[in-house]
């Protein structure tokens, strides 16, 4: 009985996932507007970035305020690799992901041993330091101007499909890791760290694991982003970039993995379609929106939707 229920729930999630995928796959049938593809590609990119942030911050309760480090780090690594080492662009995202996972160990090991705000401080500091180093060597990195990159593929449509594929694979992996593979340790740490420790869960190990996986996906998508935009500037390492996954995840729903995807789609579509009107004030809109959600709706949109469907089910009964 219970097993049937669980199976039903999994099937239902799978069905939603497939419907979502098919809808996005079919969008090119209805429009050939390049700007629509651009917005959707950006949404896919930020969806991966945000759900990777959710894995460390939403699941294991350690907030990273400098995820731009991995996003921008992956982007710059890609630029260096293609420019100096003639690495084919196609391999760059994967290399960037692995390199950023390794970098996350350097940051993560000293911070995650300690409980408290250290990860937030150190990631913030590391991202800012990286940015100032990039700016400090203009003859290598071209400073504020940024570096040009070769695109993975030409054209809006192929890029859209690649980003879509990347998103669905990454989200599936992150979702599987967070909700099936390490579901018990992650939720235990999030709900009560002391209790988790007392039950023999190696809190540091699982936090580090979440952090490394998160850095991998952020580096991967940062590299893809740079290739897609065909340029990378120090902006990719800035606090503004770190703010993006935070806002999208909190608006979408922390600790849900699907929430950040919803958040990314909503926010990117709104900001990009109103770009002319609100470009100057977009950051403050993000900030205010996030504050509103933290204070008034800490579950985000995903949890609100879930509560809504549950409510309906109760009414039906």
């Amino acid at each position, binding site marked *: 009985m219970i097993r049937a229920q669980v199976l039903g729930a999994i099937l239902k999630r799978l069905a939603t996932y497939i419907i979502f995928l098919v809808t996005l796959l079919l969008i090119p049938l209805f429009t050939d507007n390049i700007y629509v593809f651009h917005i959707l590609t950006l949404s896919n990119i930020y969806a991966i970035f945000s759900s990777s942030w959710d894995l460390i911050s939403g699941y294991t309760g350690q907030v990273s*305020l400098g995820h731009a480090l991995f996003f921008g780090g992956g982007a710059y690594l890609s630029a260096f690799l293609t420019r100096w080492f003639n690495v084919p662009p196609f391999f760059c995202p994967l290399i960037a992901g692995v390199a950023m996972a390794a970098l996350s160990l350097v940051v993560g090991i000293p911070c995650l041993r300690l409980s*408290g705000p250290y990860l*937030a*401080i150190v990631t913030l500091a590391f991202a800012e*330091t990286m940015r100032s180093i990039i700016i400090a060597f203009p003859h290598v990195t071209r400073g504020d101007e940024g570096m040009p990159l070769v695109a993975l593929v030409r054209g809006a449509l192929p890029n859209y499909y690649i980003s879509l594929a990347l998103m669905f694979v990454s989200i599936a992996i992150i979702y599987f890791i967070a909700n099936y593979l390490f579901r018990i340790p992650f939720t235990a740490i999030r709900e009560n760290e002391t209790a988790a420790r007392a039950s023999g869960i190696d809190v540091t190990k699982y936090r580090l694991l979440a952090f490394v996986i998160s850095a991998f996906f952020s580096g991967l998508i940062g590299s893809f982003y740079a290739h897609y935009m065909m340029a990378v500037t120090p902006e990719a390492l800035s606090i503004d970039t770190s*703010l993006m996954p935070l806002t999208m995840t909190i608006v979408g729903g922390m600790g849900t993995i699907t929430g950040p995807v919803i958040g990314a789609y909503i926010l990117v579509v709104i900001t990009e379609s109103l770009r002319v009107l609100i470009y100057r004030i977009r*950051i403050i809109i993000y*900030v205010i929106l996030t504050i509103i959600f933290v204070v008034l709706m800490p579950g985000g949109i995903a949890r609100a939707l879930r509560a809504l469907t549950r409510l309906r089910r109760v009414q039906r009964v």
Partner: protein
Amino acid sequence: MIGIAAQLTLYGLLLGSLYALAAIGLTLIFGIMGVVNLSHGCLLATAAFITYSLHKWLGYNVAAAILASIIILFIIGVIIERGAVYPFRAAEMTVIILTFLIGKALEQALYLIWGAIYIASPMRIPGSFDIFGTIVPVYQVVILALSVALISALWFLLQKTKFGRAVRAVAQDEEAASIYGVNISLVRILTFALASALAAIAGILLNSVYMFHMTSGWEYLLIALSITIVGGLGDVRGAIAASLVMGVAESFIGYLISPLWRTTVYFVLIIVILVIKPSGLAGLFRGGR
């Protein structure tokens, strides 16, 4: 040679004493509330911008502008404590996120009001004098004297007055302090407001040394954070010692290597301290635990 070294040391002490003003606020807040206020750096920048425009746009004289912006920051401190810290005191990470967002909001407010400009402090003290061939600008001496006086006053406030005793009591054990009749809410509000006012003073004085930009706040946040981590989170004495040492180090590194490495050095320090002695270096000299 000695002349240059003396000049660099003076400059370093000046920077260090200003960083101390910023770091003491941060460390006091951590000691009392157990949270890190990530909007602290942006308070410095906000104060500098408010002073600048009160003087430039509204024609206040410099002293009045400084005083007014300190009072404004004091009030902002009260608002942040009541609005973002107190209601979420049980959830440390929420407070971190909220203060980060408040810092970002302040930075964006500066951007929307003033644009991406660099400002220099309206407080200008001309002149310099010559001691044994070392040229000492008057403003450096004045600022150093001001901040040393402030730090001493603060030390007196924390050690000798009733308020200071209450603050230290709450930092040690909030429940016990409240049993002994300390008004916890008031201590929290006043500490946060005091810390914000100190940040304002640090920002205004630092602005006469460095130019300020809307994003400068984050740089000073990182500097103050690394000082508090080196000194030990929540340790006022450690923060003062660490700021002086790091101010002098920054001044020498800036002269000998390059000023570009300023933030990098601070960052490397954070990591090294977290790896070897997370409770801060101050404990080492006290036969610490």
